[in-house]
């Protein structure tokens, strides 16, 4: 019945929680150490931005170090996702590969903004315009790179909704629809390249707050859904003997 090497339920659970704890650590160090939650207004001058980095140079760099450690721990979460979704496919699991590829790319775009903030804080006494450039690169990388999340989400939604009644389907149907909605909402982030004020600015309601909130909810839902799937997997293998 099963032709794929499987990860034991215990290992899956461990990877999931470990990844999750590291994501929380990532969020906390972004909030408390890098201190850019929310991002400063896009209308700030080079002098204001440079002053922010001078005042918080060490704290931002420590935050960037922690974020650099933590960002890659999204990978185990996606490994568990793929270990579950691959059970829904026969032959070469194209949708799972696509989903995993999207997840891998996403971890890169998770680590880049803290890295760029760290670079901006690395030489706080350089000319302010250069610091501003690095700061803009970091912020726009954070809010406009949602496409890679979408490449992860669309295959999950497809598998969730198309494998109706599949005994191994770990994804409830409402979750599939939530993921579709999340993917749609994430597309708004790229607008942040246009205005400097209002809801589409890089610290705006539609490009910053909503995608972040939705992503947090998605992470939580995914954790719950996967833990339930792992429990079912255990129950099934127990009854299979």
């Amino acid at each position, binding site marked *: 019945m099963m032709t794929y090497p499987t990860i034991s339920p215990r290992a899956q659970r461990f990877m999931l929680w470990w990844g999750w704890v590291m994501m929380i650590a990532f969020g906390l160090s972004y909030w408390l150490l890098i201190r850019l939650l929310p991002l400063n207004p896009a209308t700030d001058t080079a002098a204001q931005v440079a002053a922010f980095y001078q005042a918080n140079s060490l704290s931002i760099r420590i935050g960037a170090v922690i974020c650099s450690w933590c960002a890659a721990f999204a990978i185990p979460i996606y490994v568990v996702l793929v270990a579950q979704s691959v059970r829904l496919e026969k032959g070469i699991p194209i949708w799972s590969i696509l989903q995993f590829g999207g997840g891998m790319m996403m971890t890169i775009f998770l680590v880049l903004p803290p890295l760029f903030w760290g670079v901006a804080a690395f030489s706080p006494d350089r000319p302010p315009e250069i610091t501003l450039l690095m700061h803009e690169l970091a912020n726009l990388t954070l809010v406009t790179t949602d496409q890679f999340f979408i490449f992860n989400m669309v295959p999950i939604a497809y598998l969730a909704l198309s494998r*109706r009644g599949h005994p191994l389907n770990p994804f*409830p*149907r*409402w*979750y*599939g*629809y*939530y993921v*579709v*909605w999340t993917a*749609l*909402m994430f*597309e*708004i982030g790229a*607008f942040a390249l*246009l*205005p400097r004020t*209002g*809801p*589409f600015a890089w610290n705006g*309601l*539609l490009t910053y707050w*909503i995608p972040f909130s939705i992503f947090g909810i998605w992470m939580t839902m995914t954790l719950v859904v996967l833990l339930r799937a792992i429990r079912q997997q255990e129950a099934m293998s127990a009854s299979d003997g």
Partner: protein
Amino acid sequence: MAEAKRVPGEAGIWVLIGGDLLVFSLFFLIFTHYRGQQPEMFARSHETLNGGIGLANTIILLTSSLFVALGVRRVRDDRPGGATLFRCALVCGAIFTALKAVEYGEKIGHGITPLTNDFYIYYFAFTGIHLAHVLIGSAGLIYMAAVAMGRPPSTTRTMIIECGAIFWHLVDLLWIMLFALFYLAGSHG
């Protein structure tokens, strides 16, 4: 199956519908909030919108919703012709998209872009996000037409078609909201 008591489609799709309605309501509030801050500029910009195209698109989408509703009825009653009706709705969607392209082209031809002022970033962004919904809904219509060709009718087939129809009606409803917001009420706060 208790026909009168049944939720159309399936419960899960209402997560997507509800989420979308929530966000478009937010668009509505954002637009009115910023219009309140710059009423003259919004009124001036509103004057430049092509009301003819806006109205035509409203009628086209309402017509497409009628086609979809009739198609769903055919599928439920196990009568032929559902697929044809979904294709008619698809043509409406294509006309809507073409007219939107003409309208955007007109604006850009006059040197109006999303960066012209606040009114236009909302206009381009909100109608653009809606247009993405039209394209997704159109893909749904193509799929629905294929499913409607299948025989015999099954609860699964009916459910897929109902879900696609619900989404298409949502697309229609969101457009009515945008039409009211930009083309009708754009001038007075």
